[in-house]
Each structure stands twice: as C-alpha cells, then as structure tokens.
C-alpha cells in the first residue's frame, strides 16, 4: 500500500507541476510529502508561485490564484485516474476571463475521456459547452428545465430549436 501511495504521489506531483504551469504562465508549483513520518500518515504541503512572482505563503495568493491552484491539483489527481464523469458547480466563479479560458481549454482536452457537467454563470464556460440546459422558475418555487443555446453574437441564452416545436 505504501508503495502504491508513493507511486501515485509521484505521478500527481508531476502532473501538478505541468498543469499549474499551463494555468500560470511562467509559474512553478510542487507538492511535498512531509519528512520523517510514515508516507501513509504524512501531510501533503503545496508550494505554488504564480509567474514572475516570488515564493511566499499560500495565504498571500489572491482569491482567483488560490482557486486555480486548487483546480490544478484536482486536475493533476484526475489525470492519474480519470473519472468517467465530473460535475463542477460554479468553480469558475472567482476566475477572470483569461483564466476561465485556460480552465475550459483543459476541460476540452479531458473531455475525450470524461463527461463534464458545468453549473455556471460564466459566459465563457457556456461557450465551451456543447449543450446547455437552462433552469428557470416560471411557476413560483417550481423548477423547470429547457434546452438552450448560447447566441454567440448577442451573448445571451435562447431556447433551442428543439424546444420551440
């Protein structure tokens, strides 16, 4: 078990560095298993430095940087053992436009292996989706779902052709 854990840790560590670099141009990140304790018990520390900056405590990172670092770690673990489907509920909320694009680019990459369902308010995430469901509450307190499309020019959601029959 210890051997398996260390092997997994190795792979995750390598992936984490790679994914982080793809999200943070010129950045560097690593995972460190704390010394002197049984690997099966030891804490895992995260070191992350966005591009061009100097390494400092994770707490000093911005809200968006923290989220993107955590997403890098989740993706790193995912790459070791891809799950058949993955549901994200508004994880893109703290990200700026450029970072949302990087995040969706990674999803489009992984979508070969994995089905993604993204709950989002973000228009760039909506563009990345191949199909969209709009949830509404026309009837008070009662949810209803319609298939919608993202009108790229007007940047708004409209019911799909299918629904209009």
């Amino acid at each position: 078990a210890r051997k398996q854990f260390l092997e997994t840790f190795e792979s995750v560590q390598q992936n984490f560095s790679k994914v982080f670099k793809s999200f943070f141009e010129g950045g560097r990140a690593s995972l460190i298993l704390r010394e002197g304790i049984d690997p099966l018990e030891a804490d895992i520390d995260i070191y992350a430095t966005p591009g061009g900056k100097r390494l400092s405590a994770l707490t000093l990172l911005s809200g968006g940087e923290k989220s993107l670092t955590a997403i890098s770690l989740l993706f790193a673990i995912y790459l070791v053992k891809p799950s058949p489907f993955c549901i994200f509920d508004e994880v893109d909320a703290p990200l700026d436009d450029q970072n949302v694009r990087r995040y969706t680019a990674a999803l489009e990459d992984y979508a070969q292996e994995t089905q993604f369902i993204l709950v989002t308010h973000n228009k760039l995430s909506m563009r990345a989706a191949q199909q969209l469901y709009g949830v509404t509450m026309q009837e008070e307190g009662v949810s209803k779902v319609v298939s919608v499309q993202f009108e790229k020019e007007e940047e708004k959601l409209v019911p799909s052709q299918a629904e209009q029959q």
Partner: protein
Amino acid sequence: MYLSELNIIGFKSFARKIQLRFNKGITGVVGPNGCGKSNIVDAIRWVMGEQRSGVLRSERMENVIFNGSESAKPVGMAEVSLTIQNNKNILPIEYTEVVITRRLFRSGESQYLINGNLCRLKDILDLFMDTGVGPGTYSVIELQQVEKILNGKADERRAIFEEAA
C-alpha cells in the same frame, strides 16, 4: 461510462417531472440564482447514494422532498432516476444501460432500484465502488470544496490522494 439521462420528480424544487439528456462531451447548466441548478447536482449525488444530508444542504434527509410553494402543494415522494451508459463495462453489471432510481417517502421509507428491480442502498453503492464516482469521491466538486483544498486541514488533501491511489 457516461450519464445519458436524468429524471427528477418531487426532489427539492422539482415539483414537476423534468428530464435532462446528456451527451458525452461538456454540458452546461445555467440559470438565475435559486432556480435549481445546484439542486440538479444534489439529485445526482442523492441517487448515487449520498447519505449525508449536510452534503445536500439539508438538516434532515426528509427535506429533499418538494415541500410546497406559493403555487404548488407539497408532495409525498421524491424520486430521481439516472441512466448510465455502461459502454466500457466499468460498472460490474451485465447491462450496457443501467438505470438507478432512488425514492424517499414522507413516511421516511426509502426505495432503491437498479433497472427497475428493487435493491438495497448497498447495491447501488457497490455498483460504483472503484469507479471513481459516487459519494465520498471527488467527481462532484463545488466552489467551497475547491477553496478547502488549499486552506483546509491537510487531511482533506490526503483524502483526495488516497481516493486516487
């Protein structure tokens, strides 16, 4: 393996029956605040056997049954059905198409079905064991979980690793 269809009736804000069909790629779920998007995510967690009502934002499991609104009376049962395409034979079951169903009645009685046959909760949980999805895995992720990965105690981080190992 991928999700192909989700049917919800009587669960949380879905007083009336709704159906979503998912394609293999990226699906977006959008809509205003409070319209029911996260409730859809909760429905997927619940039908896959989530027993921690806190994860479903409810104090008691009974709270997931539609409890009425200005325009609709409360209902007596919550039912969610999830259709999974078992195309890569990832699920340890003979069928290529698997429908799991969960029902909860106001009486507190629960029902679980696989392809229409009554079974136990354990059977549903066993179905997903080792697939990387289901309660306790990281295949459903929301923003607060993302933030905890960095801030939270190191045990939370370890849990994700052990999950992948």
